[in-house]
């Protein structure tokens, strides 16, 4: 009896995870089936791009700048030992474009905008706003969920591009302005080693995929939230935790296939 109980306890998180994946797939199907409605009303999507994208610009730009500065500093110190400081530009750009840009932007997006999306949908559910919409013959998935999902998909790659640019400028500030590395070397090394297709576009594809995952988790947790203060609070926490884990795990898989 104790052994079966133990097996049940070990198996339950796994079966819950499989169940969650099924529900996420079903929600994605429902969103995609109603996407035409959202596309007919671009103002709804634009509003969501503003809330999740434009309002995240500051945190993304500042974070990117600091990450770039740290990369510049660490890279300079390490490369100096091997007499290769000239490749600092390449190191900063490739680290950001391939990995740090998409991953950190997606995690920051989940913390800044994803949690907001979850809280908004959760509170709309708790205050019967979604029920009211449904009773008024308006599908809440089409009217509320799909625009937020699309807004996230559009915002994340754009924010990633901003994070990358800001990070490169941060690396430039440390390497060239503070540590007096030659400006021409910094940029020419970067230009020579960064490929538009392999690095820039693949990085943005990664960001697009992370955008889908984070946005889907955000709306899913909002719809799943218990209609209480504690329920909404737990749901926002789950959005950040699940998004971060999903992004990091998926990053490994995508990197293995892409680069």
């Amino acid at each position, binding site marked *: 009896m104790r052994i079966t109980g133990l097996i049940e306890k070990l198996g339950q998180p796994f079966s819950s995870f499989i169940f969650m994946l099924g529900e996420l797939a079903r929600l994605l199907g429902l969103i995609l089936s109603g996407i035409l409605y959202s596309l007919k009303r671009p103002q709804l999507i634009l509003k969501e791009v503003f809330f999740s994208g434009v309002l995240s610009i500051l945190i993304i730009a500042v974070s990117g700048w600091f990450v770039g500065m740290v990369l510049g500093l660490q890279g300079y110190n390490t490369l100096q030992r091997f007499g290769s400081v000239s490749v600092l530009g390449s190191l900063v750009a490739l680290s950001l474009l391939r990995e740090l840009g998409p991953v950190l932007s997606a995690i920051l997006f989940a913390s800044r905008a994803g949690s907001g999306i979850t809280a908004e949908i959760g509170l709309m559910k708790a*205050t*019967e*706003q979604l*029920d*009211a*919409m449904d*009773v*008024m013959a308006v599908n809440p998935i089409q009217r509320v969920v799909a625009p937020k999902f699309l807004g996230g998909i559009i915002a994340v790659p754009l924010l990633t591009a901003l994070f990358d640019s800001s990070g490169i400028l941060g690396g430039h500030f440390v390497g060239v302005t503070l540590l007096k590395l030659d400006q021409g070397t910094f940029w020419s090394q970067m230009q020579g080693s960064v490929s538009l297709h392999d690095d820039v576009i693949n990085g943005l594809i990664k960001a697009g995929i992370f955008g889908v995952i984070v946005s889907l988790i955000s709306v899913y947790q909002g719809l799943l939230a218990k209609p209480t203060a504690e329920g909404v609070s737990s749901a926002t926490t789950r959005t950040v935790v699940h998004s971060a884990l999903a992004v990091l795990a998926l990053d490994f898989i995508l990197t293995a296939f892409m680069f």
Partner: protein
Amino acid sequence: MKDSLVTLDQVYFAYEADKPILSNVSINIKQGKITAIMGGSGSGKTTVLRLISGQITADQGKVTIFNQEINQLSRRKILNLRQHIGMLFQFGALFTDMTVAENVGFPLMENTNLPESLINKIVAMKLEAVGLTGTQAMSTNQLSGGMARRVALARAVALDPELMLYDEPFTGLDPISLNVTAMLIKKLNGNLGQTAILVSHDIEATLKIADYIYFMANGQIIDHGTPEQVKNTSNPAVRQFINGDLGTSFSYKYPSKQSYEYYLGQQ
């Protein structure tokens, strides 16, 4: 019945197998009348409204609305049907990211192809009908509880529905707002010939405006009749409810359930 707009025929509904919310509930809602469903908290009143609006489906029995059995309808047909139904939620359920005008105009924007100028005129008319002229630009957090309820009422009747569902419209209102809301419900019913289903546990206001009343307790209909018949009923449970007695027919104690016994076993 020929003049019935909504009928529930021996309906059974449960969220969990051992805890029926409704059992063997039969209700006839006459066209053009205000029918109230009364009973204590947790008696299953709101579940009846959710069944009628198609938000949930009965496990057993038939729910017929506009001569169509709602359990048999596709999601699309239920959505079409809902364009003829208005619902006032217990706390209004106004959209907090929209202004008053956007809230009231929402069903019109979503379900009709009317030009914006006409929608604005209809919104103004509906707000005037609930005594809130000039509040169009206000945001929902600027409204008092009573005003929010009236905005929600204006939104619910924006499409001039044939059937109005009111879920506890008097809860949490001061006596003046309560009477204003009751008067508006009566006025809408009289002016537009709307059929109304009113779920409430406010005795005084409901007896004043309802044409027919069903009493519910523990998920069952225990009595029904006109307000006069209800006032003079000999049913002890209804008498206890009307007079607010502590009595024995309604118990304030939650019945011991299997889950509670399980909980005790865990301690």
